[in-house]
């Protein structure tokens, strides 16, 4: 364990640790563009120049392993002058189009200019012209002039996805980042290149021009797009959620997440949501009537459940452990219902895995569901069992904990017909869909960003999510639902 002293602070680190990493552990910032912990070392931006005592030449912190007794300075005059010049070399051909650049506010050129710059530029020559707004497929836009050629995105597609779409072509200041012949960058991890781009060269088609980043706040969450449970941070404001980006968790997702997972937020925002109770009223010739207070609806549903002898409970693996606990406590513990069914989505590809992060089980909590059912001794049937029972007219009423993310339930629409055969369906759903109109009750449920709880991922890791934003004021979770029903049915919780 060699000991290194950086700006007077010492730390023992594992042999082979780079100076930049040691500085990170000491909370000492070292400017950098090309270095990224999840990628190989390029050593090209030359921003992380530091001084090592007894060495007249400045070294780059990213490629310098710590040696015993090394004394490093990151903030003396010599280093600051060198870093300022490295920054200026990045800026001399940069278009400085911050006002129209989506990266503004979270751009490392801006950040370091505040730290090292604040000078009068001396570049008076013509700038290198390159292409702007180059479309690289469905998700990513490239601005070659803004690109500082740090090669992070190239290394990502070479080393992580091994899809090799991106390259840096030509030499010197004619070098351009591109795909070959501007071919699409359509791998399912493409937006990671946008995340790791330290400047506005790669931007997300989905996110760009929607919000200035200084109007957004981030909260931590866990992706509910599949059973991997990638750690994410979600950007939001009063108008809703705008983007999902990965958060580092070396045990779960490393530094990355898939593009599919980034779309999950779309089912969270108001326009996709069921915002109030919808009830099919026989007394209005089967028309849907909106607006009954949730508490009142639960009371009526509770009575219905109490009276019903033919009750089925159908669950998906999209809810938290805590919700399942409350839900099964009511239906199994109190009501002794024995008819439970698990609705498994994508059955054919359920076990598949893309080799990086994305799993065929497109639910965040399959293991949580299994664990909780086991705890209550529930032996649930599968879809085919449910279907068979419906055909045999075994049920009159079903309570369905329906999927929050409809997109990952491709069989959803075709299965609605089975539910429609029942007289009464209590459809618990966070999303709005015209095809649910035949169900007796639709109850607005919270999405994963509006509730706290636990997901258990594919390998059994328990991860907490936290209620961080309110989008649908009337939405409830399964805990609130179970409490409301318990009260109505008259069973103590």
């Amino acid at each position, binding site marked *: 364990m060699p000991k290194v002293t950086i700006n007077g602070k010492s730390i023992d680190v594992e042999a082979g640790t780079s100076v930049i990493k040691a500085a990170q552990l000491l909370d000492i910032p070292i400017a950098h563009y090309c270095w990224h912990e999840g990628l190989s070392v390029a050593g090209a931006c030359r921003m992380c120049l530091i001084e090592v005592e007894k060495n007249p030449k400045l070294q780059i912190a990213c490629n310098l392993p710590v040696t015993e007794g090394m004394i490093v300075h990151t903030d003396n005059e010599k280093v600051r002058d060198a870093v300022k010049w490295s920054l200026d070399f990045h800026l001399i051909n940069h278009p400085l189009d911050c006002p129209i650049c989506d990266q503004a506010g979270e751009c490392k050129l801006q950040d370091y200019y505040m730290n090292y710059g604040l000078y009068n530029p001396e570049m008076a020559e013509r700038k290198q012209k390159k292409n702007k707004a180059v479309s690289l497929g469905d998700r990513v836009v490239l601005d070659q002039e803004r690109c500082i050629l740090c090669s992070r995105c190239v290394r990502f597609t070479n080393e992580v996805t091994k899809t090799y779409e991106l390259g840096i072509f030509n030499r010197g200041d004619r070098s351009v980042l591109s795909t*070959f*012949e501007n071919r699409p960058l359509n791998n399912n991890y493409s937006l990671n290149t946008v995340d790791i781009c330290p400047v506005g060269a790669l931007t997300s088609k989905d996110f760009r021009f929607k919000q200035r980043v200084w109007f957004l706040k981030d909260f931590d969450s866990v992706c509910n797009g599949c059973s991997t449970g990638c750690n994410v941070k979600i950007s939001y404001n009063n108008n809703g959620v705008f983007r999902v980006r990965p958060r580092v968790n070396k045990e779960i997702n490393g530094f990355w997440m898939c593009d599919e997972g980034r779309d999950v937020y779309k089912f969270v925002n108001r326009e996709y949501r069921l915002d109030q109770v919808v009830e099919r009223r026989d007394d209005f010739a089967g028309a849907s009537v909106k607006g009954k207070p949730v508490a009142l609806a639960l009371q009526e549903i509770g009575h219905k459940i109490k009276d019903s002898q033919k009750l089925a409970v159908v669950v998906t693996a999209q809810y938290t452990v805590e919700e399942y606990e409350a839900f099964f406590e009511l239906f199994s513990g109190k009501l002794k219902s024995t008819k439970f069914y698990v609705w498994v989505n994508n059955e054919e590809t359920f076990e598949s895995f893309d080799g990086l992060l994305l799993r065929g089980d497109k639910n965040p909590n399959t293991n949580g569901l299994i664990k909780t059912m086991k705890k209550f001794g529930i032996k649930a049937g599968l879809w085919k069992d449910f279907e068979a029972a419906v055909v045999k007219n075994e049920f009159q009423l079903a309570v369905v904990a329906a999927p929050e993310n409809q997109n990952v339930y491709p069989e959803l629409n075709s299965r609605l017909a089975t539910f429609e055969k029942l007289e009464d369906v209590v459809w618990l759903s966070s999303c709005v869909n015209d095809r649910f109109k035949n169900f007796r009750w639709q109850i607005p449920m919270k999405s994963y960003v509006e509730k706290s709880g636990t997901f258990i991922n594919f390998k059994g890791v328990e991860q907490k999510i936290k209620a961080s934003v309110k989008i649908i004021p009337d939405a409830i979770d399964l805990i609130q639902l179970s409490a409301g029903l318990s009260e109505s049915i008259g069973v103590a919780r």
Partner: protein
Amino acid sequence: MSLSLPAASKAYIQKELKRYETKESALIPALFEAQKVFGLITPDVIDLLAMEMDIPSSRVSEVFNFYTMFNKKPVGKYHIQVCTNISCAMVGAREYMQAVCKTLNVKSDEVTADGKFTVTGVECLGSCGTAPMAQVNDDYHENLAVSDIPKFLEKFK
């Protein structure tokens, strides 16, 4: 139009793929071979090589774009590359190049109307002691003089 490599070129590339420790080392030889066949390297040629060698097109293109000897634009049958670096410049290489362009009535990098010549100024060719000099296709021509230009061009009929 779909391009294809002649059988001999394919065989050559397959041999080069096995010649070195890794197949990527065969990229430069393959690009030279393709240039010999097609005259210049177009995106179609890059795709063709990528397929033939099972190397991503982006990698082929990166290598192609890095080196100056691969033609990005069409060149004449005789590519006259005049060195204009320091030693040559001091003994009149730039004036020589201008004179050749004037004689052929082209600007640098253009192809003459008959498709025969392109004149390009290039960096040091390692013939500094015999300047001015020019590389025409594979061969060096040294100790050139403006007064000999007509006779010099005669060689390339």
